[in-house]
């Protein structure tokens, strides 16, 4: 009897080791193949072209853009709003789903957090790009007025960025220790050092886990109001200005709901690419696409509701200048973009994702990309048409002031910022585990023992 139980224990341990080995081998960072290297090279190329365009802008000033007296905010600001919107996904997956005890969120948490961190980083950078005198950025902190929504935005973006980094870093600690302890000889010295320093002497003791989990819980609670604030304040940059199309009390929830929608779509898009590239089918399953698809439908319906409020109420009244601006959107020069955004970026995704077949990985990915692209153009539609419909009629001004067509410098810099965000995500995936190993191990009852782990590549 005793011999038998020893054999069972040994067998159990062997199975345990095998499962641990498999889990860690699947999820530790891996070298890029040809496709990965090509991807990185293309992103670098886009960033380099953007850098050259920015050099032009620094040398000659904002005159190289098509922004003039009326369109003083162009695609840089549209891009800024887009990045801030996407960054809300961190709070959605890491906080809202966590506090709601949604257990399937585990493999998606880190994906959502790195999207949030990269987006908020690039949002801050693109604002500097929009400045005619970027050397005066410190004036914002020294001469800023607390009454100005711009200062509120500076404060809330800095705070949200800090909390997002902490929320990314804290649950990374056990996985960093895993990387540190699995390192043999075939990785560069800087990476060994990076893992060692960032792992903060993590040993996986009960007290360390206790502190980490408690801190994560506090941050999860804290980040929700901050996420609401960051995008509400961004909406106030517009809504506190008396302009046709912006003068709306609907703007806060309208922006926040749109942000959650695009954030959820971005997670679906990124998780599809990672799942295929790293063969993570065992961890990111059809169930995740199905559930994220349902969540995206819900968020899209809420956003649709706010869109109806935003356009229908104003369209019913058709006040003079506001009416002109709306007609420009509905039937005028912006109509193709407007209807593309509304139909392809919102209505079609809702319809497709309502069906189970539409929530399978590939269709969900295509729909998610449509939502993200639509969301970018949506921000353009919020910013530019309004500026070209001021209350005082545009008269006796140079012809170039009457329209806004972004220049190659603006497109290049904007493309570079998007490529930059993707580069941040790409490098993170290359160096750190993108799926939380310790949480999955915990859920599956696998005990992680660092000495059993295979090498990090």
């Amino acid at each position, binding site marked *: 009897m005793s011999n038998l139980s020893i054999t069972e224990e040994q067998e159990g341990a062997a199975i345990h080791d095998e499962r641990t080995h498999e889990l860690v081998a699947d999820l530790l960072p891996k070298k890029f193949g040809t496709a990965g290297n090509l991807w990185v090279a293309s992103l670098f190329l886009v960033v380099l072209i953007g850098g050259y365009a920015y050099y032009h802008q620094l040398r000659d000033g904002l005159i190289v853009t098509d922004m003039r007296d009326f369109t003083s905010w162009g695609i840089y600001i549209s891009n800024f709003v887009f990045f801030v919107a996407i960054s809300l996904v961190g709070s959605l997956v890491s906080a809202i789903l966590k506090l709601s005890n949604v257990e399937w969120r585990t493999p998606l948490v880190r994906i959502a957090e790195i999207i949030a961190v990269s987006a908020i980083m690039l949002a801050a950078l693109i604002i500097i790009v929009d400045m005619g005198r970027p050397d005066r950025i410190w004036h914002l902190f020294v*001469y*800023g*007025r*607390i*009454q100005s929504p711009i200062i*509120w935005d500076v*404060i809330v973006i800095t*705070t949200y960025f*800090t*909390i997002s980094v*902490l929320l990314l*870093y*804290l649950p990374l*600690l056990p996985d960093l220790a895993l990387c540190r302890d699995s390192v043999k000889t075939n990785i560069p010295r800087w990476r060994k050092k990076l893992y060692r320093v960032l792992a*903060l*002497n*993590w*040993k996986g*003791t009960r*007290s*360390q886990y206790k*502190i*980490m989990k*408690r*801190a994560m819980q*506090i*941050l999860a609670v*804290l980040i929700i109001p*901050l996420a609401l604030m960051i995008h509400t304040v961004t909406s106030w940059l517009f809504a506190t200005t008396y302009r046709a199309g912006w003068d709306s009390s609907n703007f806060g929830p309208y922006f926040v709901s749109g942000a959650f929608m695009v954030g959820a779509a971005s997670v679906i898009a990124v998780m599809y690419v990672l799942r295929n590239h790293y063969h993570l089918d065992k961890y990111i399953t059809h169930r995740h696409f199905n559930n994220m698809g349902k969540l995206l439908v819900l968020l899209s319906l809420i956003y649709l509701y706010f869109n109806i409020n935003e356009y229908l109420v104003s369209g019913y009244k058709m006040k003079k200048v506001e009416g002109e601006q709306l007609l420009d959107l509905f039937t005028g020069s912006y109509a193709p973009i407007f209807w593309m955004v509304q139909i392809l970026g919102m209505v079609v995704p809702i319809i497709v994702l309502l069906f189970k077949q539409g929530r399978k990985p590939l269709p969900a990915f295509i729909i998610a990309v449509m939502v993200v692209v639509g969301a970018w153009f949506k921000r353009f539609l919020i910013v530019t048409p309004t500026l070209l419909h001021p209350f005082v009629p545009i008269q006796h001004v140079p012809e170039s002031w009457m329209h806004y067509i972004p220049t190659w410098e603006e497109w290049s810099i904007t493309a570079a910022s998007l490529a930059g965000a993707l580069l941040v995500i790409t490098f993170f995936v290359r160096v750190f585990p993108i799926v939380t190993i310790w949480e999955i191990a915990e859920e599956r009852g696998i005990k992680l023992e660092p000495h059993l782990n295979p090498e990090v590549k």
Partner: protein
Amino acid sequence: MKNCLLNYFQFLLPAIFLLTSENLFAQEASDSAQATIQLSFNDRDTVRQVTAKIVRMSADGKETPVKDVEIHFYIARMYSLLPVGGDVQTTDESGSVTIDFPKDLPGDSEGNLTVIAKVEDDDALGNLESEKILKWGVPVANKALTKRALWASGANAPIPLVIAVTSMLLLVWGVIIYIVAQLFRIKKLGRV
């Protein structure tokens, strides 16, 4: 011979013209350099007047009034010059022009105004300018900037707003500092 003379005059005459004209310009420049506008102010009874006198100073220090020169009077405002004194007037035999000065112009918080007299593109004198600051304006304090309001300067922000923003910042950054302290605790626990 005739051709030779022609060639001679062809080059000589323009050269003489250039030399003399240069001398003329130099003379003008020196006239302009020597001439000045002197401003004086009268504030008697209910009338305020500004007198501008143009004098040319000779080498021995003697002042000669310059007559028939147009003088423009202005008050410096924030972005441009406000013309005062009605139509442009020319200096009399004594080289002077006197204008009535308005009494209702807003000045800075102490009532200071900058009065400017100008001679612009005069054939003989070129450009001349003289200015003086005097307390002839109505003192205007920008109350909107000194009162606590949303549109006031940063130092005069509404107290409730300052309290709300500061307390939110303290609360959130207090938690962030606490979390960072927890990271140090985790590191310390790992050393054991």
